[in-house]
């Protein structure tokens, strides 16, 4: 009788070796330079790729199994949410503005990140980072997909969701996140890792994810909240990868330190400018607020950031160059951005509104030194217009920053009564910036940023030539998706349906 032979079960260490490191080979008939043409030109020196430590030791088979299980649970909740009119459980329809902004600005960024990690996974010459980047790339495309699925249910009922992809490419405020990722994706593989893997995922991701996902939970949005839980373990892995990549670069060669420092300075500033939109979301768009932008910054920016840069100091890395300017801006940016979004609301694919009496009390309490003095008079002006039967709009096209692409609406770091003006002449042409941080980024690589597609100047060029009706069609913006919340179809429908449900 034959004895059935059970195949020997591999231990974790052995499995990891076979399914990651062992996948590499030494090229025999092509040289390394031909296969990996992009690893040298940025100036980062790598002496030993095998020194790359993978803290998770995750292999593809385990990855699939684990993610599939999460998705099964996730889609069960999404289905239940759709079947039980989950959209009527949100606090009120103002909340939808926050997730419209998420869908137009952040979900496409997940997709961009997927493409970026797929690319750098191919470009790195070591199998450790290749495998790690491949998994992160798959995570990111899953995030984009599951977010789109979560929000597609809202698209059946409300305006402003239906064409997020065109709006991501074309509508003016979305050029802020888009240009951020385009900048990273057109950089070399090491800069991409510092930009997205380290600066964004490690230093800033909590400032993005925690507010959105706790905002969803506070405001009864089970679909988005469930996405947050599903993504949480991935985010933890991405943060660890971000930290590993910077340590790897710093430990490989001391010549790498100034290059990495330059990238940290750049991407920290760019990330903080991008997050001003999240600041406005936290302080103004959630009917039930989680915490103020100031409070979030103190926890996730200051506390975590200080610990991180203390840790990196032993490599000779200093805190990001414009850290102090960010700190000075925290009590101002959300008000400045939201006043801007409100006055340009005829051109946004989400609704905005003036703060209510209780909103105003909350803002006064959270921003005791700035809100009442500098920003309340402008809100009161807009409220008075509304009470008189009018509506405050600013039909002027704003000057945009050549780097972050936001309207140049930020004030001088030390003078909140004065807008910040910065300009640089480069090869006979003028370029404008919102801040010292953005001007510095430009001056490091002017050849790159002169190519920026800025939506306002572009509107005056061929083929639109300033035609606003043609612009609205081109960006796929229907008038029902834009404008004041108080008079929106979204508000009227939400209230009507909610009443129906409660009387049935």
């Amino acid at each position, binding site marked *: 009788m034959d004895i059935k032979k059970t195949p020997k079960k591999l231990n974790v260490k052995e499995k990891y070796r076979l399914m990651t490191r062992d996948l590499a080979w030494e090229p025999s008939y092509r040289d390394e330079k031909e296969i990996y043409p992009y690893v040298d030109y940025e100036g980062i020196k790598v002496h030993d790729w095998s020194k790359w430590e993978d803290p998770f030791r995750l292999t593809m088979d385990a990855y699939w199994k684990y993610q599939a299980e999460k998705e099964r649970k996730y889609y069960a909740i999404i289905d239940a949410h759709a079947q039980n009119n989950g959209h009527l459980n949100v606090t009120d329809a103002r909340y939808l503005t926050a997730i419209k902004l998420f869908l137009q600005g952040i979900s496409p960024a997940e997709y961009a990140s997927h493409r970026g990690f797929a690319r750098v996974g191919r470009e790195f010459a070591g199998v450790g980072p290749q495998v790690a980047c491949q998994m992160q790339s798959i995570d990111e495309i899953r995030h984009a997909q599951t977010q789109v699925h979560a929000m597609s249910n809202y698209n059946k009922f409300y305006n402003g969701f239906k064409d997020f992809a065109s709006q991501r490419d074309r509508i003016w405020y979305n050029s802020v996140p888009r240009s951020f990722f385009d900048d990273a994706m057109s950089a*070399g593989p090491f800069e991409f890792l510092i930009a997205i893997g380290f600066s964004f995922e490690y230093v800033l991701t909590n400032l993005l994810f925690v507010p959105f996902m706790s905002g969803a939970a506070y405001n009864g949005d089970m679909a988005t909240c469930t996405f947050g839980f599903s993504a949480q373990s991935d985010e933890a892995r991405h943060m660890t990868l971000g930290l590993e990549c910077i340590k790897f670069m710093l430990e490989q060669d001391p010549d790498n330190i100034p290059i990495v420092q330059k990238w940290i300075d750049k991407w920290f500033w760019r990330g903080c400018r991008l997050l001003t939109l999240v600041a406005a979301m936290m302080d103004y768009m959630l009917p039930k607020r989680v915490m103020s932008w100031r409070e979030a910054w103190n926890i996730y920016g200051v506390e975590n950031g200080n610990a991180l840069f203390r840790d990196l100091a032993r490599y000779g890395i200093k805190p990001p160059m414009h850290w102090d300017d960010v700190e000075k801006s925290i009590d101002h940016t959300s008000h400045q951005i939201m006043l801007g979004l409100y006055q340009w609301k005829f051109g946004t694919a989400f609704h905005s509104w003036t703060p209510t009496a209780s909103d105003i009390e909350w803002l006064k309490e959270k921003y005791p030194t700035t809100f009442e003095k500098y920003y309340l008079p*402008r809100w009161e002006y807009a409220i008075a217009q509304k009470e008189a039967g009018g509506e405050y709009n600013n039909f002027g096209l704003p000057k945009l920053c050549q780097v972050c692409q936001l309207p140049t609406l930020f004030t001088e770091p030390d003078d909140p*009564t004065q807008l910040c003006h910065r300009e640089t002449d480069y090869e006979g042409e003028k370029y404008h910036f919102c801040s010292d941080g953005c001007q510095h980024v430009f001056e490091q690589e002017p050849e790159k940023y002169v190519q920026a597609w800025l939506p306002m100047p572009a509107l005056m060029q061929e083929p639109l030539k300033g035609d606003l009706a043609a612009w609205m069609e081109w960006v796929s913006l229907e008038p029902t998706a834009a404008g004041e919340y108080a008079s929106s179809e979204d508000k009227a429908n939400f209230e009507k349906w909610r009443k129906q449900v409660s009387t049935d």
Partner: protein
Amino acid sequence: MAVVANGEYKFPSRDRVENYYGHQLLFACWDHHMLMAAPFMLFGAPDQKLGDIIEQQLKPLMQPDPDFDKIDWDAIEWTKSGEPWTPDFNKTVKENGLVHKEQFRFKTPGLSTLVPPQGE
């Protein structure tokens, strides 16, 4: 500093004046007046009278501000690229020395209904 690239890296600017079919962009900022959140982008031809651009484009956009009707247009302090500057409204954009994407700023001393005066 220059961009780090693995080949020649030279591309034309996206908003060069040639892309505006004989026109150009200008930016205008009313200092200490932030009801309108950012400086305005204006659009015109170099041989257009500056006064026409001010009257037809800039003034209608400034009107919502409660200080607008109180402006003494003869007492305005003008600057261009940080330097004092005296515009001549009867001359053209070009004769006023305003190149493509130039920003001019103007101060209306004493008017501060919605934004506290500087330094307060």
